C-alpha cells in the first residue's frame, strides 16, 4: 500500500466517524468536550455555526452520527450525541454575544428565499452577515417550515423553535409570512440577483385508488397535512379508534399525536415486516411505550365505509419474500383478511416534492418524480440564478441534510453573485492539527476511557404527557448525567499521528495498544495486509494508516483505524515521540467565511 497522506484533509476526517457521517460535518467531539467542561454556550456555538438549529436538532435529528460512532463498535451502544447537543442548548447562557451582529454593511445584492424551513434559514444565516439583502417568503404564520408544521410539540417545544428561528431572522432577514409564492415567473421578474428554493416536500403520499378512499373524506387524512393542522390548532381532536398507515417517522408522530387528541385505541399498521420500518428505532420505541401496537405485513385493501360513515380498514396478510437479487416481494399468505375498526385513518406513507408554482417554460428543468435537475454539489438548477436545497432539492431527507444543503447553496449563491465559478471556486475545508502533549502523563484532552454504558434520557410520566400534546416527553439530561455521558466520547478527533523518521521500532506502541490496532510488518497490498495484522481487520470501511518504510527493518507501521480508542497510550509509551496525539479540527468552510465566529476554546 502507498503511505497514507495525512495532509489530505479527508483522511483524518474519516476517522472522526460521527463528524464524517453528519451531513453538515458538525465537529461532534469538539462540542462534547466543551459540554464536559460545562462550557455549554461555547458548545452551543460550535453547533450553531455548523448546524444552525442545535436545540431543534438535539431533539429531532435523524442522528446519522450515532450509528457511525466508534463507541458502538467497541461496546454496545454509541455515545448519545444527539441528546448531548440538546444539553448544550438547554444549559447555555444567552448566545447572542457570540453571534454575528447586524446591521451588516450592504453589498448591494438581493436574494429571494422561497420557503422558510431549515434550508432557507441556513442560507439566510450564512448570507446575512455578508451584506446580502434577503427576502424570505413562507406560507405559514411563522418561520421553521416542516420543523413547525410536521414535528409535534411533545418532541419539539415551540419555544425552542421560535428561539432558533429568531436568531436567524434577527440577522436582518426580511421575512414575509402568510405568503404563498404562486409563480416563479413573478419572482424572476423582480430584480433578485439569485433565488433559493427551499420549499420542502409538501405533498403527502395518498392511496387514491384504494376502494372507499373518497367515501368518507372527512375521516381519512393525509399525515403531514393533519400534523400541520394540529400544529396550527385547526384540528384539536380525533376519534377514539385511529389507524395510522405507514412505518416512517411521520407515522410515529401521527400515532403519538392522535393519542394526545383523544385517540384511545391507536394502531399503526405497516404493509411490510417490522424490521424494515423506516422510522428511527427510538421513535418506534417511544410510540410503543405509549401503548400503540404496531402490526406488520398487512397492506390495506379497502376503507370500509357504511352509509357515508367510516367503519374501519380491511387488511390483507402478506409475507416478505426476497428473490435472488434481494428484491422484496410481498406475497399474500392466504390467511383471512383482517378488519380493524376505526373512526379516523391517518395516511403517512411518504411525501413528495411538488412545484405547481414553478412554470415549466422558465429554463428550470425537471427530471424524474418532478425533482429539479441540479448539480448535486452546487445545488444550482439549469437556470443559473436559481438554487435549490433541502427536501426540495433531492427529495425528502431530514433537517440536518437540509442544513448541509443550505450551507452549500449559500456558498454557490455568494460565488455566483460575486461573479465567480460556483463549481471551481468553492472553498476547501478548514483543517487544524494541534499537538496535545502537556506532560509525561498529561494530555490536552481527557484520555481516560470511561467504561460507562449509555445513559438513558428521563421521560415525563406517560399519563401526564398523553394529557397535553405540548408537554415535551423527553426531559433531557441533567448536567451530572450529561457529564458522564460526555465522558463516554472517545475523542476520535484527537488523532494518532505517526512520524516515520523518529521511530526506532521498539514495539512499545504495539505492546500497549489495548485494542491491538498497530502492526509492524512488511508492506503488501491492502487485501493481503488485512490478513496479517495483530487483530482482525474486517471493517473495510475503516482505513489502514500506512507509514513510509522504516529505516531499521524496511517494514511499515500499519494502524487499523477501526477500533482505536484514541487513548493516547501509543504516544505515551513512545520513547521518541514518533507517535503524537494531535487534535484535528475539520470545518466546512461557510459562504464568505462570514459566520466564523471566534471562540475562546
Amino acid at each position, binding site marked *: 500500500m502507498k503511505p497514507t497522506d495525512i495532509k489530505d484533509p479527508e483522511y483524518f476526517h474519516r476517522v472522526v466517524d460521527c463528524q464524517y457521517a453528519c451531513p453538515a460535518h458538525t465537529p461532534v467531539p469538539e462540542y462534547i468536550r466543551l459540554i464536559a467542561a460545562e462550557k455549554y454556550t461555547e458548545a452551543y456555538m460550535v453547533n450553531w455555526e455548523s448546524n444552525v438549529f442545535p436545540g431543534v436538532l438535539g431533539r429531532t435529528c435523524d442522528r446519522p452520527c450515532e450509528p457511525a460512532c466508534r463507541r458502538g463498535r467497541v461496546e454496545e451502544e454509541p455515545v448519545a450525541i444527539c441528546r448531548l447537543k440538546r444539553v448544550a442548548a438547554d444549559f447555555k447562557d444567552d448566545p447572542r454575544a457570540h453571534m454575528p451582529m447586524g446591521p451588516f454593511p450592504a453589498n448591494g445584492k438581493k436574494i429571494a428565499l422561497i420557503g422558510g424551513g431549515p434550508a432557507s434559514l441556513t442560507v439566510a444565516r450564512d448570507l446575512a452577515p455578508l451584506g446580502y439583502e434577503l427576502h424570505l417568503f413562507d406560507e405559514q404564520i411563522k418561520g421553521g417550515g416542516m420543523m413547525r408544521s410536521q414535528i409535534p410539540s411533545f418532541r419539539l417545544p415551540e419555544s425552542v423553535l421560535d428561539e432558533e428561528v429568531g436568531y436567524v431572522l434577527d440577522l436582518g432577514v426580511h421575512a414575509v409570512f402568510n405568503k404563498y409564492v404562486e409563480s416563479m415567473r413573478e419572482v424572476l421578474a423582480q430584480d433578485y440577483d439569485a433565488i433559493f428554493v427551499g420549499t420542502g416536500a409538501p405533498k403527502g403520499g395518498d392511496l387514491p385508488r384504494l376502494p372507499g378512499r373518497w367515501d368518507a373524506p372527512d375521516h381519512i387524512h393525509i399525515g403531514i397535512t393533519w400534523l400541520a393542522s394540529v400544529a396550527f390548532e385547526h384540528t384539536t381532536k380525533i376519534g377514539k379508534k385511529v389507524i395510522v398507515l405507514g412505518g416512517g417517522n411521520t407515522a410515529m408522530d401521527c400515532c403519538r399525536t392522535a393519542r394526545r387528541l383523544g385517540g384511545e385505541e391507536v394502531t399503526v399498521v405497516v404493509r411490510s415486516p417490522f424490521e424494515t420500518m423506516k422510522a428511527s428505532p427510538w421513535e418506534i420505541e417511544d410510540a410503543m411505550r405509549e401503548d400503540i401496537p404496531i402490526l406488520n405485513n398487512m397492506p390495506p385493501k379497502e376503507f370500509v365505509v357504511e352509509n357515508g360513515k367510516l367503519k374501519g380498514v380491511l387488511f390483507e396478510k402478506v409475507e416478505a419474500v426476497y428473490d435472488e437479487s434481494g428484491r422484496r416481494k410481498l406475497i399474500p399468505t392466504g390467511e383471512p383478511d383482517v378488519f380493524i375498526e376505526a373512526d379516523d385513518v391517518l395516511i403517512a406513507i411518504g411525501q413528495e416534492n411538488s412545484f405547481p408554482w414553478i412554470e415549466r417554460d422558465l429554463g428550470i428543468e425537471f427530471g424524474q418524480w418532478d425533482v429539479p435537475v441540479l448539480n448535486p454539489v452546487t445545488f444550482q438548477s439549469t437556470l443559473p440564478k436559481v438554487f435549490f436545497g433541502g427536501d426540495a432539492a433531492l427529495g425528502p431527507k431530514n433537517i440536518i441534510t437540509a442544513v448541509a444543503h443550505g450551507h452549500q447553496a449559500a456558498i454557490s449563491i455568494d460565488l455566483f453573485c460575486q461573479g465567480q465559478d460556483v463549481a471551481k471556486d468553492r472553498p476547501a475545508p478548514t483543517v487544524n492539527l494541534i499537538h496535545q502533549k502537556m506532560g509525561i502523563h498529561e494530555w490536552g484532552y481527557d484520555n481516560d476511557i470511561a467504561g460507562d454504558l449509555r445513559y438513558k434520557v428521563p421521560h415525563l410520566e406517560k399519563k401526564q404527557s398523553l394529557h397535553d400534546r405540548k408537554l415535551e416527553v423527553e426531559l433531557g439530561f441533567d448536567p451530572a448525567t450529561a457529564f458522564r455521558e460526555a465522558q463516554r466520547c472517545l475523542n476520535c478527533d484527537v488523532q494518532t499521528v505517526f512520524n516515520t523518521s523518529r521511530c526506532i521500532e521498539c514495539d512499545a506502541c504495539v505492546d500497549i495498544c489495548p485494542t491491538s490496532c498497530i502492526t509492524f510488518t512488511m508492506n503488501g497490498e491492502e487485501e493481503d495486509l488485512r490478513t496479517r495484522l495483530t487483530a*482482525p481487520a474486517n471493517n473495510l470501511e475503516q482505513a489502514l494508516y500506512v507509514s513510509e518504510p522504516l529505516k*531499521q527493518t524496511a517494514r511499515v507501521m500499519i494502524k487499523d483505524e477501526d477500533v482505536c480508542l484514541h487513548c493516547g497510550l501509543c504516544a505515551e509509551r513512545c520513547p521518541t515521540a514518533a507517535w503524537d496525539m494531535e487534535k484535528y479540527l475539520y470545518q466546512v468552510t461557510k459562504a464568505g467565511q462570514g459566520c466564523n465566529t471566534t471562540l475562546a476554546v
Partner: protein
Amino acid sequence: MTYIKPKFRHPELPVNAVGYARKDYEGAISTLCGGCGHDSISGAIVQACYEMAIEPHRLAKLSGIGCSSKTPTYFLSNSHGFNSVHGRMPSVTTGAILANRDLIYLGVSGDGDTASIGMGQFVHAIRRNLNMVYIVMNNGCYGLTKGQDSATADLGSISKGGVPNAYMPIDLAGMAIELGASFVARSFSGDKTQLVPLIKAAMSHQGFAFIDVVSPCVTFNNNPGSTKSYDYVREHLEATAAVDYVPEKEEITISYGEGQTADVELHDGSRLALHKIAPNWDPHDRLSAIQRLHVAREKEEVLTGLLYLSKDNETFHQFLHTVDQPLNTLTEEDLIPSQEVLAAINADHR
C-alpha cells in the same frame, strides 16, 4: 491517567483452545520506560502463552530484582508469581520445582540479576537441569540504578554515561552451553517473529531452557556507540536459522525454497522447524554451537535463534528419583512408612 489501561479490547479477538483470549494473559500496565525492550519481551510471553493455550493457573512466574524482574507484574496476571531477592530467583524456583513438579516454571531475570549478583545461583540452576524456562532480559546496563555498565556489556560499548566499557563481557548463552544447559537460545526483543516461537519451544522443552534476550535500555543504553541499542542490534543481527514452532498435531505447511530445513523434536511432541540454517551449525552439536558463537563474536554479529538443544537429558527430578506425584500433594499417609516397612528398614541396619 495514564496508569490505567482501558478495559476495552478488540471486539473480534479470537480465543485459544482453552477458551481464553489474549487479554486473559495480560498483566498490569507497565511502569517501565516507554520503549523498554522488556515490555516487548512481556508481550512475547503473553503471545506465546496465549498461542500455546496454557491455562494461566498452570504457570508460575518467578523473578529477582531489577527492571527485568519487575516485568512479571506486566504479564500473566492470572498466574502464580514470586518476586524474590536479588539474584536468588534460581533458588526459589528450585524449591518451587521440588515442591510441585506439575507447574510450568518461567524465571525472569536480567543481566545484573543473573551475570553479577546471581551468577552463583545461575550456574547451579543449569547444573541441576531444573525444568524451567529462564529468560534473561539483557540490556547491558543497570537501568534501575541509572545505567552503569553491567557484566554483559561488550568491551568498548558506550552507554549514555559516555565512557567506553573497559571489561570483557560475560556471554550468558555461551556459558549456559558450557555448563550443560539442555536448551539455549538467544533472541532480540525487537523481533517477536523469532522470540515467540523460541519461548514456545522453551516451554515445551523438559529441562533447563535458557533464552538470552537482547533488550535495549531505551533510557541509558540506546545511544550511538552502544552495542545493545535498537539500531546496532538490528544492523548486526544474524540468525542461526529462522524458527517456526509447530504444535503437536499440526503438519508443517510452510516450505522454504532456499537453504536447508530441519525439524527438531521437542519433548511434548511439538517441533521446532528450522529454515535457512546457517552453515557449519548443528542444533544438537554443542561444539558447533560454541564455535558458531565464537565466530559471531569475531565478526561482531549478534547471533540469535536456537543455539543448542540436547537430544536427551535428565532433569532435576530424574536425578533425584522423586515420585511422579508432586511432593506438595503427598499426605502423611504417603510419607510415613507403615510399622512393617519401618521394622524392615530397622532390621536392615541391625
